[in-house]
């Protein structure tokens, strides 16, 4: 392949990076140390400007450094590698920047909660309730709130997940025409219902309408209302992923439709359905507004979700910050609040991991 004849035919923006004798197929690349050097240069520029213009604080400097990095890297790439690669680097940098921007707050939140909450963790913290513990006392725990959250979210799941899965089965396997379209539309609308509205609905209906006092299952009903649309949507997507020729194979054997769904479609989609169930649970595990209206709060342990106030983890946070009684929080109560918040995060995390393990076990195997 002749390599010395046609530098003009090359598409790259500059022939500066190509030495004589290089083939047309090889494009110039930036050296491997280009990225760190560009970053260092950007930081230097930002620091220089900071000193020059006497900026107080670091935010302007940070964003200047970021902008300078993009400019330096892209223009350097343009001169060496050409227009196409420069555009690629520009887009890649933006994508990575967005990723970092999304991850950093999450990491900060998780880190902060962990650091603040871990100090208060102890065996006692998980086994005691707040009965008799005032804002000036040490000790106390979240046992009552943990029970409450587990029971209420559990009841909500028992109500919402079957409704969600059956609706998804209807929409995917049976629904045609106007009714199915209406169902899809209303499910989409329900996804946006604010949690306080769901709580208010159940409050007006049950507590005001029947004159009942707050109890745990009422909160579970409101949470179920919030869970159903998430469960329907996610389950629907998982069922749609089952290939059509599996259903046809089953029909061709003379298997009725409902048995095909139960014995072929659902088992094939099972790992996805488990993940959807978890998504729905995670959506509501921390919702506080319905619980304020419907479940109330108590400092002592209540195992019965059908009568009397129950404590829940979000409400424990709220209570410990003094909002329920209108008092100020102390270092002790704040510590417990962080502990409860960390416990809630860990609970969702454990559910997550557990569900993924289950999903992996349920996945169709190929070996």
């Amino acid at each position: 392949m002749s390599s010395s004849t046609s530098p003009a035919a090359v598409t790259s923006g500059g022939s500066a990076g190509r030495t004589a004798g290089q083939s047309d197929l090889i494009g110039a690349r930036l050296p491997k140390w280009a990225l760190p050097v560009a970053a260092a240069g950007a930081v230097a520029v930002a620091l220089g400007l900071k000193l020059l213009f006497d900026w107080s604080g670091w935010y302007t400097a940070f964003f200047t450094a970021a902008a300078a990095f993009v400019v330096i890297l892209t223009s350097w790439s343009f001169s060496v590698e050409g227009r196409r690669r420069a555009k690629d680097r520009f887009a890649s940098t933006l994508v990575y920047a967005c990723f970092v921007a999304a991850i950093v707050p999450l990491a900060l939140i998780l880190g902060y909660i962990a650091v603040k909450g871990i100090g208060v963790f102890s065996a006692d913290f998980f086994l005691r309730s707040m009965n008799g513990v005032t804002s000036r006392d040490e000790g106390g725990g979240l046992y009552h709130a943990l029970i409450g959250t587990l029971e209420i979210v559990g009841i909500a799941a028992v109500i919402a997940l079957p409704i969600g899965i059956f609706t998804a089965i209807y929409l995917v396997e049976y629904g045609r025409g106007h009714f199915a379209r209406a169902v899809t539309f209303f499910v989409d609308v329900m996804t946006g219902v604010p949690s306080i509205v769901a709580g208010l609905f159940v409050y007006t209906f049950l507590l005001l309408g029947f004159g009942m006092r707050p109890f745990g299952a009422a909160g579970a009903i409101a949470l179920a209302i919030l869970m159903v649309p998430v469960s329907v949507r996610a389950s629907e997507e998982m069922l749609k992923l089952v290939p059509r020729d599996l259903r046809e194979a089953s029909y061709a054997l003379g298997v009725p439709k409902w048995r095909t769904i139960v014995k072929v479609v659902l088992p094939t989609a099972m790992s996805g359905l488990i993940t959807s169930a978890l998504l729905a649970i995670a959506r509501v595990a921390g919702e506080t507004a319905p619980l304020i209206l419907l479940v109330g709060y108590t400092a002592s342990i209540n195992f019965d979700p059908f009568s009397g106030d129950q404590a829940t983890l979000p409400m424990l946070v709220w209570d410990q910050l003094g909002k329920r009684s209108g008092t100020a929080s102390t270092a002790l109560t704040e510590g417990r609040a962080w502990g409860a918040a960390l416990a809630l995060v860990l609970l969702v995390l454990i559910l997550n991991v557990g569900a993924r393990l289950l999903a992996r076990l349920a996945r169709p195997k190929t070996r």
Partner: protein
Amino acid sequence: MAKRIDVEDVNVFYSDFLAVEGASINIAPLTVTAFIGPSGCGKSTFLRILNRMHEVIPGGRVSGKVLLDGENLYGPGVDPVNVRRTVGMVFQKANPFPTMSIYDNVIAGYKIAGTRKSKNEMDDIVERSLKGANLWEEVKQRLNRPGAGLSGGQQQRLCIARAIAVEPSVLLMDEPCSALDPISTQAIEDLISELKSRYTIVIVTHNMQQAARVSDRTAFFNLAGVGQPGRLIEYDDTAKIFSNPTKKSTEDYISGRFG
């Protein structure tokens, strides 16, 4: 036992679109019939009406009669599920159930349908069907392994075993070898020659040489033009179709002038 099929003046629709027009055919029991024709001419559609799979597609409907040993499959009160137990089907792309083992795949026609069988009966059925599909020797040591872990040709034979396990009277095959390599194709063609002593077989194929090798009689389908419905052009003994066809379009197709 193997039955004869008589189709009388059938029109096949997708909602309002007429896909196959005025097709009539008589298929004798214990024979292999091949449907050939260019892409989109309606041969797969026509195959699917023989076991009432066409109506699974939204908007699919059929007018006319399809008689299985004289009984109209589209008669009033006929349950499509029962029809499909009598007329089995093997698809183009092998589709073993991914959540089930090889054993469960073969017995699926009974297990999923909820028909109770004792363990011994099930073992017998599995062994008989896998032997009938020429797959027994290859998998008898690993019946509990997942069905999806086999090679393409083995999966297709597994699907054939699954189809014959429910002892249908007719076996429909929709381009069963088009996704397979020549060795696996040979294995399946040999299998068809054996199966024809027990079942009536109808096979749709794109491959004319395969039709010539495997079938007793051949039906040629064609489209009159773009957007026109497909029609059955000629139906005759395979030897005659491929050496001395009556219709000009048949001759053009088999000599490769189009399609």
